[in-house]
Every structure is written in structure tokens, then in C-alpha cells.
């Protein structure tokens, strides 16, 4: 897919050696621009809103609010690294959070069983996506739009338009509601998955193969990499993380309904795309994705405290994405022109 092709922009050690401070800063700007912007926004809002913005309460609110988007972003970036897009992250979470509750309320399963089934179904969906994309050779955008829409239809059919409610065990609520060192546990889930994914993507052959498949699948194949296996694996990982996010959402909302979840799709993809403009510009990367989600979270939180309306969130998401991609493209062309 053209839009996912990449061209890395990171400055090299050799380029930096012998460069003066100004050129160094200029070379690093595309790499850490988004990070600096995030810190700048935090500083700006802290000065303008000293009593409400830089508070533990606000940090908690942001983390508990955005952890699910962060997880979906991280999930979506796995197939993205291999040059595929996975739209089921947004549709899957609708069905998974409903099932995490209804399996308990309607079928009387203990919650660990319900969670295990949901996670298993997430893996299965990823496997199906992988088969459609790699075996049936359907473009990933179309294939996952199809499976995603089917998942959504299943959610509607299963709920019949009603809400899934019922008294659930406290231990189920604790999956989302626990605080560790004063911060929501969901933040630690994100941190744990981020570090694991970062190690895999940057420091193990698995990550290298996924990036190689994303850059040149034919080359990867010629070099003996089982590309089919890796692409299917990427979709399964993304499906698993989506299902996990669904469980968190269920535990957080305590209600399952088909009208909740779809709105996560676009911010999740925006986060991953934003991430491809920073840290390792030119390719989707783990910390970049986290920064992408963070800048959206910070920006939206600040604007909302100023009394921004309900439409501010998607507006901020969209504008930030366009600006970041625009700047990244500009930096790319300048680098290309210099060569």
C-alpha cells in the first residue's frame, strides 16, 4: 500500500559527526519534533491552567481515558509495519467489550473464562484477516473493512440494540480500576506492551522481518523469510491486543453496547500514522505511536479544559495528523533534494 511505504529520515552518526550545533538541531528536529511539541503543549497548558492541568487528577484522567486508544494504536501498528492496515481494531472492540460482559451475564461464565474466550476470538479474527490478506490476496484495507463490518453486525445482532448490563464481580472491574503507585493500572498495561513491542521490533529478527516485509515483500521472500507466516502473525497480534483493549473497555464501562467503540478506530489509526513521523521517521514505530497518542491526549485534554466543544477532539486529531504528515513529507523532500 503506497501510503504505508516508508523512507527513514533518522540522522546517522556519520552525518552528525562534524556537524555544528545548528545543523545537529535541524537534523534532530524531524526526529523529535513531535516529542518537543508534546512537551511544549504540556508546558503551555500548565502555565495557562495552573490549577487544573498539571495535576495528578488530570494525569489519571488522561491515562484512563486514552489507554484503550493507545493499545489499539499499538495493535494497529503491527500489521502496519508489514505494510498492511488493520481496520478491525475499531470494529473488533465493539464486539469484544460486549462479549466480555454478555458471556458473564447471559451465559454465566466466570470472568476469567469470558476474558480468555474474548482473547481467543481476537486471535481467531486476526488469523482470518491474515488468511484473507495473504492467502486470498485481498487488499488489507478491503479485507479488514469486510471482517470488521461483519464483527460489527454480529455485535448488533447479539445485543439486539440493547445494552448488556448486569452485576459483575469486583475482580473484573479491578482489571481496569486498580491504581498502582497512584496511577491507573491501564497505564502500566500500555507501558508493558510498549516495552515488549519495542524490544521485539527494534532488537529481534521478528521486528526486522516485519519491517522488511513492509519495505519490500518480494525481497523478504527471496531472502527466505516466511512472509505469509509473519503477516498472519502480525494480524493475530493486532487482533489479540484489540481483544485485550475490549476487555479493558468492558471493565471500565461495565456496560456493553454496540454504539460504543467505533469512535476509537480513527484516533487509533491517527496515533500510529502520527507515530511514523517521529522517533524513527518514515516508518511506523513503537515509541512514535505512543508519542502520537500522547500528543493527541494532551492537546485534547487542554483544549477541553478551556471549554472546547465536543467537536474539538476529532478536529484536533485530524489537523495534527495533516500537519505532522505535511512536515514529515517536507523534511523528506528536503533530504532527498540534498542527496
Amino acid at each position, binding site marked *: 500500500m503506497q501510503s504505508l511505504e*516508508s*523512507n*527513514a529520515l533518522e540522522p*546517522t*552518526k*556519520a*552525518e552528525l559527526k562534524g556537524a555544528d550545533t545548528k545543523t545537529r538541531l535541524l537534523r534532530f528536529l524531524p526526529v523529535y519534533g513531535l516529542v518537543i511539541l508534546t512537551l511544549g503543549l504540556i508546558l503551555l497548558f500548565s502555565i495557562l491552567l495552573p490549577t487544573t492541568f498539571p495535576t495528578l487528577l488530570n494525569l489519571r484522567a488522561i491515562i484512563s481515558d486514552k489507554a484503550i486508544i493507545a493499545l489499539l494504536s499499538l495493535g494497529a501498528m503491527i500489521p502496519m509495519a508489514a505494510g498492511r492496515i488493520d481496520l478491525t481494531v475499531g470494529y473488533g472492540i465493539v464486539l469484544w467489550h460486549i462479549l466480555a460482559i454478555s458471556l458473564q451475564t447471559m451465559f454465566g461464565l466466570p470472568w476469567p473464562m469470558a476474558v480468555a474466550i474474548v482473547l481467543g476470538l481476537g486471535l481467531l479474527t486476526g488469523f482470518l484477516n491474515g488468511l484473507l490478506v495473504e492467502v486470498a490476496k485481498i487488499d488489507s484495507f478491503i479485507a479488514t473493512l469486510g471482517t470488521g463490518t461483519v464483527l460489527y453486525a454480529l455485535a448488533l445482532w447479539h445485543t439486539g440494540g440493547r445494552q448488556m448490563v448486569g452485576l459483575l464481580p469486583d475482580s473484573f472491574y479491578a482489571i481496569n480500576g486498580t491504581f498502582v503507585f497512584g496511577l491507573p493500572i491501564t497505564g502500566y498495561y500500555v507501558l508493558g506492551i510498549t516495552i515488549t513491542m519495542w*524490544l521485539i521490533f527494534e*532488537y*529481534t*529478527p521478528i521486528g*526486522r*522481518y516485519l*519491517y*522488511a516485509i513492509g*519495505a*519490500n515483500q*518480494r*525481497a*523478504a521472500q*527471496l*531472502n*527466505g*523469510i516466511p512472509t505469509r507466516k509473519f503477516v498472519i502473525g502480525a494480524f493475530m497480534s493486532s487482533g489479540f491486543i484489540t481483544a485485550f483493549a475490549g476487555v479493558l473497555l468492558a471493565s471500565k464501562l461495565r456496560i456493553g453496547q454496540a454504539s460504543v467503540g467505533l469512535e476509537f478506530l480513527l484516533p487509533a489509526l491517527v496515533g500510529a500514522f502520527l507515530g511514523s513521523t517521529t522517533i524513527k521517521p*518514515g*516508518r511506523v514505530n513503537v515509541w512514535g505511536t505512543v508519542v502520537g497518542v500522547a500528543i493527541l491526549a494532551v492537546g485534547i485534554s487542554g483544549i477541553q479544559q478551556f471549554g472546547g466543544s465536543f467537536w474539538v477532539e476529532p478536529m484536533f486529531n485530524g489537523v495534527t495528523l495533516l500537519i505532522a504528515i505535511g512536515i514529515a513529507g517536507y523534511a523528506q523532500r528536503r533530504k532527498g533534494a540534498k*542527496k
Partner: protein
Amino acid sequence: MTDHPLVQMRGITKRFGGVTALQDVNLEAYAGEVLAIVGDNGAGKSTLIKILTGVYQPSEGEIFLDGQPLEMASHSDAIAQGIDAVYQTLALADHLTPAANMFLGTELTRKVAGIEFLDNRRMKSEAARVLDERLGVRLRSMDVTTDSLSGGQRQAVAIARAVYHEDLRVLVMDEPTAALGPQETARTLKLIKALREQGLAVILISHSLDDVFEVADRVHVQRRGRRVGVVETANSTVQEVLGLIVGAPANDAA
């Protein structure tokens, strides 16, 4: 050049459905020699080397390596036997470093707590060593991505990937100079000569007869799926080879 061929293809025929791409083709390549394969489009050059590198299987005919019959079911079988190829569209992942590309699929790793982690430092030094020692190429930086390298340097990275395997004996190159400027072409031809000196059998597909006469010892001419002649560059001319390629009557003596 030794007396008996390192690689010998005998009576190779390849049919794709009703189309016969190759008809009873023989090919011999010797260690320490550059053999060029020339011919018009559709003459069967690519099919021939794809059979030699295990990508296709012949409909009829046999391949011998060092006198031993060779059965290859896939390209990896060919690599295991010491036959590798550098493709026209270089099989490089552009946003990875030269070292990452060189070791793609055969990464060097070290175990930390039972998990295999990439040994990036060793891959980088090994890549730099192979590029320098085997190909005489030094990159200004090993940390750049391959898409920022010149065409010739990318070619070198692709070749380095093949020659890193110590047991490589036959290297097939498909149009290695097609996308290069004059200077890069000269450098690539130098690389090919260096590989010949190291005792490899180099098989080269090229459209440029100038390049062929510059670097090759013998020229294998294909026309319409058949071998129409083999000439030694020392005793031949561009004119003669051109005649064979287009099938001019005076030279049509296969």
C-alpha cells in the same frame, strides 16, 4: 579456468503451458570465469537462470554441479548448494541499513535470557568487512538506509549478501548495470572482476555488449529459446555476437 565445468546444464527444456520458453539448451560455466548470457527479449535468458537458481524447475534436462547431478526444488536449495543470484530489481529493503539487508533472513543473534536478540554491532562490522575485503567497497557510513546509497553501492550490498556465504561458488547476476550511470557501471564491472579473481563462476545477463566484452570471458547467445552459439570474447567481436542475437544468416551456425 579449469578443464571441466563447475556448472553444467544439459538439454534444458522449459514449457509454460503451451509455450516453450527454452528448447534443449546446454550451458557450461567454469570456476574463475565470467560467462555472459545475451539475447533479445524473450530469448529465454531469465528463464534459464531461474532454472539454474532453483526458482523454476526444468520440464526436461539435467543440471550438474561439479559433475554431480543437482536436484533443486526451490531457490533455497540452490543457495544451499552454493548457487545464488543478484536480481535486476535488487532484493533490498530500502529503509533498513546495509548490514540489516545483508543479513536479512540470516541475522546474527545472541541470546539474552533465552531470547534471540539481533547482534547489530557484529552484523555491522561483518558487513563492513565483507564489503571491504571481498568487494573493495567502503561506505561512508554503515548507519544510513540503503535507499540513500548510490546504485552501485546498492549493487555492492546485494552482492555482499550473496558472497557472505563462504560456500558460494556460482553467482548469477541479472542485468547488474541496467540502471547505472557510466561511473557506477565501471565500478560494478570491477566488482565482477574481483569476484572472478576469487574463483567464483560468475554468470551475467546483460543487454550491453560493451559491458559484456569488457568483463566476460565467454558469451552464451540465446535466441528464441535456443542456444545459438558460444563465443570467447578474446576471439570474437561485438558484430559477431550481434549477428548471433538477431540471427543474421552468415552467423547462424549453432
